Structure formats: structure tokens, C-alpha cells
């Protein structure tokens, strides 16, 4: 089984169900890679060896009939370390959760395990998912498997790197403004941000609740469909999760008709790398050759997305992160001093600079006298952006754009310039604010060999068209 690193999740599951390979053996390969390749990349914070092997043994002990009901039988999966999984520490890439072990499983974890997946480990991430390079982790940056000098993207850098490096065929990250699509683009894998409400957030540590979305990485369109199929759908524990028509996506991944695809002119603005622009043009040409109609469109509110996103996300984060106060779990500093000192010293030493910056930004945006000018205004712009997308999708099936303005930048390159870092979300934040699904596909490489991600955005709950376009473009290279 020397080819483990190129095996797809579909192949692993299929061969496990047939009894051709053992889940314990596959799990062993994944764990071994995680501790060698994974530690070179700094992709994992915690490996879940004990439980992973137990899960694998349980699968191997099943009858063929039982195995046949497991769509992810024996498939090693990694989880971003902001998703609750019992018995192992959850850090969120932060110092402040020091020693915290979740006493419950996230809904996606329950669904993954019920589908036969094996949880290999918890991946490195920007602290509390705030960042676009994975350099904001308390546990150090993750290296891009394509070029270890470069950032894997963020905030789900560890999950992206683990999938790109062949440690696991599938991983969950989480998106708030591009935290899966952008690292998928940087590492050369697929990243899907599902429709807001499609996957339960129960068990996902909140950053910005109104845009947070657990989101998968994969190396093939079929694998992405597998993990989405197994985990999406209404959850009673998440009031914002939605009951929707959840068809069997795997059954039909072929496009049955010609699509109309819009290219917003605002998505090729200043700062767009020429090689990324060329990749976009090339994709357009391929689509037209395949018989799809590409049209130029305009989404005038696009340049409002970054300021809107940073106001809303930071405002929500300022409240979401208030619970990390040293009282009940995690780090506690100055335990013998006053309550105020305990609070401020715990938070001062527990949070990194980017997290503090966003908490202050968000607190300010919600303060008396500023609330209307910032939070309310941003909420209004967000509503207009949602309508702008809705209006566009009356005329087109998909939006086509770059995922990020550039390929992976060098580690350290933008770390001292938060604003430049924020701008790497410029093409991903709009879909997050509107709650529509979007996918990043590894469709090109730069002359120096760096992956370039191309993004497709669809209307609410039209993941099926995203899966079909992904399969069409990736399987007919």
C-alpha cells in the first residue's frame, strides 16, 4: 500500500467495505505520516492515536453487511482544532484554552464517526480562526507542503496542509471569511464553503456566528461530495441550521446542461496577480469550450465586503470570546489577585495580538455612540450584498472568480501589515457575508509551480452545481 498518499477517500472506503484493506492499517499510515510529514509542516496540534485505532479496530471487526452502510468506512479525517472532540485537548490555536478538554462531540464529529470515518488528529490554525496565513497560531505557523517557505493560507492552514501533503484525504476546517477556500487555493486542494446553515455549527468554537461555517477540504470532487453528503443537514442543536433538500449528489456528478457563468469585473481589481488573472481567463476559455456561456457582470458592492466583514465579524467575536475569562476552564493568571486583575492578566497573556486587535475593533464597533455608524451600517450593507447576489443569480447559474488575489505568499511577508493580510479575503468575504456556497478548485499553477485557486459561487443550497462544475473541470483536465 505504498500509494496511500494518493488514495482517495472514495477508494479507501470502497476497499475497506470490500475487506481488501484494513482500517487499522490505513489509520496507522495516516498517524505515521501525521507524526513525520505532519510535524515537519507543523500541521497538527494533537494526534488522536488512541481513539483513532479503537475506531479503526471497531470497523475491521464489523460484518461486511455493517461495513456496507458506512460511506466513509475507514477514511482518515483531520479536524481543525476549533471543533469539539471529546478526550483530547481543544486549543483553537490559542494559549488561553490551556488544558481544556471538550466534554462533548460536535455534531459533524458524531456524523463523521457514524459514517465510518476515523479521526486522526486536530490541526493547527490561526488563533480562534483569525488570520489568513496560519502565522497567528500559538503553536507556530504551518508550512505550505508545496513550498515550506510559504504560508499555507489561513485560518484552516493545518487542515489544508494535511490534505495537500497526503496525510489524510479529507479534513474539516472552518470558514468565516475565506478560511477554507484561501488555504485550499494556496495548498492546491479543493475547499468548499457550504451555504450558511447547511452544516451544523454545534461544537464549532464561534468566531463570527453569523458567518462561521464548518467547511471541508478534499483532493477530488467525489471525496468532497462524500464528506458533505455524510455531514450536512439540519441539526436540532443549531437553531441556524436549515432543513433543506439533501439529494444524493454522488449519483449524478455530470452537468446535464449548459450553464451561464458570470465574471464580476470587481473581482479582477488592483492587486490581482497577473498569473492568477491568466488562470481565470484560461478557466473561462475552457468553460466556453465545454459549451457554457460566460458573461461579464458587475457586483458593485464588492469593495465594501472587507470593511463590512471586519466590522461584523469583529463585533461578534468580541462577544464570542468573552467567555475565555479564566473563571471556568483554560488559562488563569493572577489567581491570587482581584477579579479584574485575573480577567485582564488572563486575557492579556492568553490571547495573541491579532485576536486582541479584533476584540478591540469589535468592542469599539458595538459601543454606545458608534453602534449605528459601524455595526448597523455594516449590517445594512451586508443585507444589500445578499440581495445583490440574489439578483445576479436570477440571470446566471454561477459566479466565477479567483479565490485569492495571489498564490501563496512567503511566511513573514505580511505578518506586520494586517491590512494587506485582510485584503487576501477580498474575493472570499462577499460570499461569506451573503451566506451563499462557494468552492475553490486547484485549476492552475504559477510558473514557479505554486497552486492557483479558482472560485465558483452558487446560489443558496445549490452545492450540487458546485460539485458538478468541480467534477467537470477536474476530471477532464
Amino acid at each position: 500500500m505504498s500509494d496511500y498518499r494518493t488514495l482517495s477517500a472514495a477508494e479507501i472506503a470502497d476497499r475497506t467495505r470490500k475487506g481488501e484493506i484494513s482500517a487499522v492499517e490505513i489509520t496507522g499510515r495516516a498517524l505515521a505520516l501525521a507524526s513525520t510529514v505532519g510535524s515537519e509542516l507543523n500541521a497538527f496540534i494533537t494526534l488522536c492515536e488512541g481513539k483513532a485505532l479503537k475506531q479503526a479496530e471497531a470497523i475491521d471487526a464489523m460484518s461486511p453487511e455493517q461495513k456496507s452502510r458506512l460511506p466513509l468506512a475507514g477514511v482518515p479525517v483531520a479536524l481543525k482544532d476549533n471543533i469539539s472532540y471529546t478526550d483530547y485537548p481543544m486549543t483553537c490555536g490559542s494559549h488561553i484554552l490551556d488544558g481544556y478538554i471538550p466534554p462533548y462531540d460536535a455534531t459533524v464529529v458524531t456524523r463523521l464517526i457514524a459514517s465510518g470515518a476515523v479521526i486522526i488528529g486536530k490541526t493547527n490554525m490561526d488563533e480562534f480562526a483569525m488570520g489568513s496565513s496560519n502565522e497567528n497560531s500559538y503553536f507556530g505557523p504551518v508550512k505550505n507542503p508545496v513550498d515550506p517557505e510559504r504560508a499555507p493560507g489561513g485560518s484552516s492552514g493545518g487542515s489544508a496542509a494535511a490534505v495537500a501533503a497526503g496525510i489524510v484525504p479529507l479534513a474539516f476546517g472552518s470558514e468565516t471569511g475565506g478560511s477554507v477556500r484561501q488555504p485550499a487555493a494556496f495548498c492546491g486542494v479543493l475547499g468548499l464553503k457550504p451555504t450558511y446553515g447547511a452544516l451544523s455549527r454545534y461544537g464549532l468554537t464561534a468566531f463570527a456566528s453569523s458567518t462561521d461555517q464548518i467547511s471541508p477540504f478534499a483532493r477530488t470532487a467525489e471525496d468532497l461530495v462524500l464528506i458533505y453528503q455524510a455531514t450536512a443537514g439540519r441539526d436540532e442543536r443549531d437553531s441556524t441550521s436549515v432543513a433543506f433538500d439533501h439529494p444524493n449528489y454522488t449519483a449524478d456528478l455530470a452537468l446535464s446542461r449548459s450553464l451561464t457563468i458570470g465574471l464580476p469585473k470587481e473581482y479582477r481589481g488592483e492587486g490581482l496577480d497577473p498569473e492568477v488573472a491568466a488562470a481565470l481567463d484560461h478557466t473561462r476559455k475552457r468553460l466556453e469550450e465545454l459549451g457554457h456561456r460566460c458573461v461579464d457582470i458587475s457586483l458593485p458592492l464588492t469593495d465594501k465586503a472587507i470593511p463590512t466583514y471586519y466590522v461584523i465579524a469583529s463585533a461578534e467575536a468580541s462577544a464570542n470570546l468573552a467567555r475565555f475569562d479564566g473563571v471556568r476552564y483554560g488559562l488563569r493568571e493572577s489567581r491570587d489577585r482581584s477579579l479584574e486583575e485575573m480577567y485582564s492578566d488572563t486575557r492579556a497573556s492568553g490571547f495573541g495580538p491579532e485576536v486582541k486587535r479584533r476584540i478591540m475593533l469589535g468592542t469599539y464597533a458595538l459601543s454606545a455612540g458608534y453602534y449605528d455608524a459601524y455595526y448597523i451600517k455594516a449590517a445594512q450593507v451586508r443585507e444589500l450584498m445578499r440581495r445583490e447576489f440574489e439578483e445576479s443569480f436570477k440571470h446566471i447559474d454561477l459566479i466565477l472568480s479567483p479565490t485569492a488575489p495571489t498564490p501563496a505568499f512567503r511566511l513573514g511577508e505580511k505578518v506586520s501589515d494586517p491590512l494587506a493580510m485582510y485584503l487576501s479575503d477580498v474575493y472570499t468575504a462577499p460570499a461569506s457575508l451573503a451566506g451563499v456556497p462557494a468552492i475553490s478548485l486547484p485549476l492552475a499553477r504559477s510558473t514557479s509551480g505554486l497552486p492557483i485557486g479558482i472560485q465558483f459561487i452558487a446560489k443558496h443550497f445549490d452545492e450540487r452545481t458546485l460539485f458538478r462544475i468541480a467534477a467537470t473541470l477536474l476530471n477532464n483536465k
Partner: protein
Amino acid sequence: MVAEYDGFEPVIGLEVHAQLQTNSKIFCGCRVQYGAEPNSLTCPVCLGLPGALPVLNKKAVEYAMRMILAIGGSVRNESVFARKNYFYPDLPKGYQISQFDKPVGEGGAIEFTLDDHRKSVGLIRIHLEEDAGKSLHPESGEPYTQVDLNRCGTPLIEIVSHPDIRSPREAYAYLVKLKQTLQYLDVCTGDMEKGHLRCDANVSVRPIGSETFGTRTELKNLNSFKHVEKALEYEINRQINLIKSGGAVEQTTLLWNEKSQTAEMMRSKEESHDYRYFPEPDLVTLQVDNDWIARVRADLPELAEARATRFVSQYGIREYDAAVLTDTRSLADYFESVMSEFDDGQAAANWIGTELLAAVKDAGVEIGDYHVKPNHIADLLKRVKSGQISGKIAKDVFAEMVVSGDAPASIIKKKGLEQISDNSVLEPIIERLLDANPDNVAKYRSGKTNVFGFFVGQVMKETRGQANPTMVNELLKKKLDG
């Protein structure tokens, strides 16, 4: 009333937090129970663990709707939960889920009668929110605080009045009526000792006739209705004295100290919290359609005042008794249970209002839980009315019912307490009595008829009170006059 304050008029508004008596918490499935082992009634949601999410308990919404509709308010078709941000060790998420600009209920009024005047206090809003936990500071002064999070997520409604209240006594009467209404609706137990009902007061004073409001202060830590009244009295006088001596009231929050009977400054306006409310993104807009509102309205029970009015007309009892009997829903229910088997309303009202209530009070229980049941009271009253036992004997039977819980019939039989209404028994007794007291017989016959009472008393004594008094009267008259 106005004169009490030296040309000044108090302006008071009250904010009351009422704990809804649902079985489970507002955003999770944990049980609501007072006095359980600390931190035993918790889960990831009410502990505010990372990743846990709130799911609204529809029962809590329904309880809030009952109160809103019962006091004539309107339920919003769409209301929004909001986060109220502040740090405190017993607030696990660092924010409280409450409601802000779109509360579930608006308007309505609490009406009551005080000193024969009808008063209506308008309500601004009723909103839903979750309770925080409890911080326990050791009395011995050790340098730590313990936190019990069992109460976290207990559903509350906050009832905010307009500043329509003009005296501490009105505030007291408002609270009594509010509590009675909550209890009638089975929405809140109203138990202040357990913190099921909590009250903060806003108070200012202004010269009588003035249209503008004075600067107000907020009073907290008011643990009983009496404390509310006393604290308001204190603060009104403090403000008036301050103004009269040339000072100005400052907008502050004060803590009532029951021991010293004074209000102490808790924080000034500058130190007041900015709660940074914003819409709670973990919950969707609360939709309440008109059908739901109609269903809740249809299920509303008859409230105290309406019930008292009906008692007067239906059972023919005095207004005073009707008010006593409708004080609590369970007492009114008890009375009506008795009346379902008995037909003399005033007799029942007299009994329940005196003998029964005294016994219930002695037992220290809720009347609904009292072991002497309404059917036994009805049975007892019927025996009095039919003359089987006298009123005096009835009291003895009742005392035995309180002790043993037995039915009146078995007590009467066991103790031989039936009324003696048999001429052949009573006549010999009376004849013997007249023979033994010739002097008094002579007195009576010479016109001194006030000795009649002496003879009645003697017969009763002889029969241990069991003689039928009407028959004794008739027989005595016949013998003495004849």
C-alpha cells in the same frame, strides 16, 4: 397623599424580573430546580462551553405570552434576541441572552384599587431573557468566591413599567397585583425568598404640577415588597431634602441595605455599563403568528378581579369575602370545589375564610396541598345546614378532620356527635330541668323572660352541645309558656 412630600411628587417606575416556572431552561434541556447540588443542573449550553449553541424553549415563550396577553399587552409577531455584554464570574458566556429593541411583548397595564381609588400603571415592555448563575462569597471572608451555575439559563421575563407610580404604597400595591397575576397564570411562583421575583426601582421627585421629570436614581437589592416600599420612602425623602438644601440629585445606582435602612451608592453614571447590545446571531428571529397568540389567549384563566365579581353574583357572597377568596388561584379553586357540592355560598365563604384558612396557615402549606379536601368541607357544611350537627359541633369535627384527615361522617359517628333532634329524648331533659329550677321558672312566668337563655344553656350543657337548638327553643317555649 400628596401632602406627605412637602410639595414634591415622587415618580417611580419598576423593573420586575419574574422566573418562569417551566420544567427546563430557556436555551437547553437542563432541569430548573431550586436548591439542587451546585453545578449539577448544567450542560455544555448553559455552561457556555466553546461551540455550544442555544435552542429556544417554546414553553418559555408561551409563558411570556400568557402574561403579556393577560395584562392587555401586545405580542410582537417578530421579536429578536440580543446579547447583553458584561463580565461576571456567574455569567459563563460573558454575555446574557436577552431582548433589546424588539421585545416579545409591548404595552398593557397593571390595574389595582388603593384607598378606593382605581389606579392603572402602564407597562413599557415585557421581554424574555436567561438568568445568570449565583456567586457565593464565603461569610468568613476567605479570599475566594464560589460559583453555582445551576440557575444559568433559567427563563425570566422582565416587566418594565412606565414611571406611572406616585408613592411607595402604590409601588407596593402594584407589586402585589403583579405577583397575583403571575401566580394566577401559573407563570411564576412569585417566591421572592427563592429569587423567583426580583425588583429594581427607578425613582425621582419633582415639584407638584411640574411636567418634566427630575433626575432619577436606581435602587437595587430590594428583596421583598416591604423593602421596596421602605427603600423608596428613604430615597424619596433623601432626594427631597437634597433639593431643598440646594443640592442636586445625581444619576446613580444605589444598593438598599436592609440592616442599616439606608441606600448605598453602587455606581455613578460615569461608571454605568455599556452593555453593547447587538442581535444574537445564534438564534433566529422569534416568529409568533396570530394563531398561536389566539390559542394562548383562549387558554387564559379568569383572573382574580373577574373571578371575585363572578363570585359575588354567582354565589351571593359579600364583596369582601370574594376578595379574600380570590386572593390566590388555589384558594379560589378550593372555594369553587366546595361550591360544586354545596349551595350556601356565604356559609362556605365564612368557613373557608376563617376556620380553614387559619388551619392552613398553622400547617404552613399551600391550600392546594392541604390534606383536608374540599369535598369533606362541603360534606361538613351540608351537615350543619341540614341540622345534623350544630355549628359548634362542626368546629369540633373540623378540628378532628385537621388531625386525622378523616371524613366528617366517620368522625361524627365515632364520637357520637350527631345533633339530638328527637322530642322523646329532649322532652325528659327539659322537664327535669324545669323541675330542678322552680325559681327561674317563676321568674320567667312573671315576665323576666331573659332567664330563657339560662334554660337553653343548661340543655346544651346536658347534651354536650348536641341538642338541636331550634327544637330546644320550641320545646322550652311550649313548656314555659304552656
